[in-house]
């Protein structure tokens, strides 16, 4: 019995960990490329969930169209937000970024409130669950996990094997040198920010398949994304995914073997310990 609870606890933790990792990945890519912290992450996750949900209401047969539409809208939304807002924040004091993006959060949340009402929503798609003894695996969770892994692999492939990826890495390493070599930094920033927002929207669309959500429900996910980014090393997508899995598993163990109330506290404690003992994160090198 206890072994089965142990196994189920690990499975539950890994499943939610993939979502944490994906949410953190959007955040870490934006920071990695342009050194901007996306304080509107929580609202963007919820917006991604609502776009997925809204698509589902028009096509209530599968969650896939919702995910695709959410990813597309996320990319365009990222370009829009960058061009209208974020472009003007580069080089400004970080406090300005914080205030402007919290303002954006408020605008997004209240817009969602007016568009979709405060009632929590959920995509009622029936995914089968497979049980082995007392261990159960939901195919919806498996699907979410596979999507998170695929997204990570794609991001890494783009960064490592495409010209765009090389340009991004060049900008990350030395913005001035890249500019002198003819790189259009503004364009790279636009696409980098959009990529991060796209991943954030994807996390929201996947979340909508397994969890209920409401306009102001992004904050807990955003806070976990910050924890994951710090633990997994800033600007490192793979580190983010691993950190997500660690935090997800810790959340699950604390809930199953202690009390769920302490789960966020333990996650923040891990973040504080990381600040103190290994500020470069799990995957970073000591400077």
């Amino acid at each position, binding site marked *: 019995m206890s072994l089965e609870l142990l196994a*189920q606890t690990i499975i*539950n933790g890994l499943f939610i960990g993939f979502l944490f990792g994906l949410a953190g990945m959007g955040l870490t890519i934006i920071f990695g490329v342009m050194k901007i912290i996306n304080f509107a992450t929580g609202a963007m996750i919820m917006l991604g969930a609502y776009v997925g949900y809204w698509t589902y209401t028009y096509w209530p047969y599968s969650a896939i169209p919702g995910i695709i539409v959410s990813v597309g809208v996320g990319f365009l939304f990222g370009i829009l937000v960058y061009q209208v807002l974020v472009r003007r924040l580069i080089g400004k004091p970080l406090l300005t970024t914080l205030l402007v993006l919290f303002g954006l959060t408020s605008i997004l949340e209240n817009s969602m409130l007016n568009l979709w009402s*405060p009632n929590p929503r959920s995509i009622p798609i029936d995914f089968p669950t497979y049980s082995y003894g007392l261990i159960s695996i939901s195919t919806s969770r498996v699907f979410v996990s596979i999507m998170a892994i695929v997204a990570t692999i794609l991001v890494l492939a783009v960064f490592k094997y495409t010209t765009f990826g090389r340009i991004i890495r060049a900008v990350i390493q030395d913005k001035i040198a890249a500019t002198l070599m003819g790189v259009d930094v503004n364009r790279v920033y636009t696409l980098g920010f959009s990529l991060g927002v796209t991943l954030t929207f994807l996390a929201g669309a996947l979340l909508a398949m397994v969890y209920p959500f409401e306009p102001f429900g992004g904050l807990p996910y955003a806070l976990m994304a910050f924890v994951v980014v710090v633990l997994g090393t800033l600007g490192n997508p793979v580190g983010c995914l691993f950190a997500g899995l660690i935090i997800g598993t810790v959340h699950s*163990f604390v809930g199953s073997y202690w009390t769920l109330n302490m789960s966020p506290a333990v996650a923040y404690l891990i973040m504080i310990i990381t600040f103190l003992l290994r500020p470069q994160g799990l995957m970073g090198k000591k400077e």
Partner: protein
Amino acid sequence: MSEDKINRRKYLKYAGAAVAVGAIAAAGYGISQYSQQPAPTTTTPGPTTPTTGKKKLKIGTTKPLTGAEAILGRNELNGTLLWEKMVNEAGGIKAGDGNTYEVEMVYYNDENLPENVGRFFEKLIVEDKVNYLFGPIYGPLGMATVPVVMRYEQLEFYGTASYDPNQWQDEFGEYVVHVCTNGNAYLRSMMDMIMDYIVPELDPDAKNIAIIHGDDIFRNTAGVGGMEYAKEKGVNVVVYEKYHTGATDLSPILSKIKAAKPDVTILLTGGAYQDAILITKQLKELDINLKLFFPGTGTVTHEWYDAVQPYGDYVLTITQWEPGVKYPVNYGPSHDEYISRYTQEYGQEPEYASAIGYTQGLALQMAMEKCPDPLNPRALRETVRKEVEFIGFYGHFKTDEHGIQIGHKVVVMQWQNGKKMCVWPPQVANSELLYPMPKWSER
């Protein structure tokens, strides 16, 4: 020092700041989350010319007429306004002092903000000089009224089920009369159904249950009260767990329940609407096959049923009142008369908040009729405590010495083919309990 290093430090600093700001935002979350555009406060015009020979009884209230609880607030107000209209049509309240009183309601839109409730209650008492107060629906708003009525030693007919018995047990009863079944008694009807019906007649193992609940004031009192009553009734609570209301994932707790199987047969939850969706989905995902479950009060809404399709049937819900739940009325309008008048007046069927709003008035009316000094809050309070007991369309009304409602009981409903059917108590049940639930894989 590299640029990267500077930025990393800045990042860490601001990430820390973000978490701190997030925590502050979370603290303000409950207040800000559903507030909408502020609307101008309004008062009813009220009767401009009092009828000769009749005295005027001014009753004040606030309701959330905008914001997330606007529908409930409007419905509760409609119930009260219908009572006002019906009483005045009948010639007013013939009070125990020999006078007849015509009712005038004064109300404000509190915009679903507790700070507005306190301010408006003070205004109602000091400026509008109302005789009595009716509390608003929704826990945080109701709680905000209590310090004000206590400070001014006024009498309020409470409009919601949330209160903190530990905080106000003694003083509370002097100034507040409960109309609803209190949060700490919310799970009692379910326990009664389990021990008085399911265990003796259907399934002896049904007394092994799990209780989990959120940690906000209403759900905490519901869960703790349920736990205490379970002990009293001899129910065997195999798993008991509290979680932070609004938690995004409850699979760790539900896995505990699964690990306790096959002992746990029934799960009772004090959960919010979102929790009710989450618990239903995660029970199915984790393939936890209970014989019955109640995932929270949010199950009373059709929105919940739609959100968990096709797994809403067999799930239990509880409510203060539903159309179709008929009591043998000995005071006030009958079930059919009330529904007919309400529908005629507002163009829609009443729901539980409307019934509470009407019953606030009905309780005050009986107290006025029996009290020899009906405009004295303390005298009226004593009358409510000792002499006011009736069965209205909403059910039995009787309070204890602390003003807590002990007559009225919540009814247990079960979703059956997309409809809520009353399955407990037997006096008002209109359907048989479907027990046990089929396994998830068989549905």
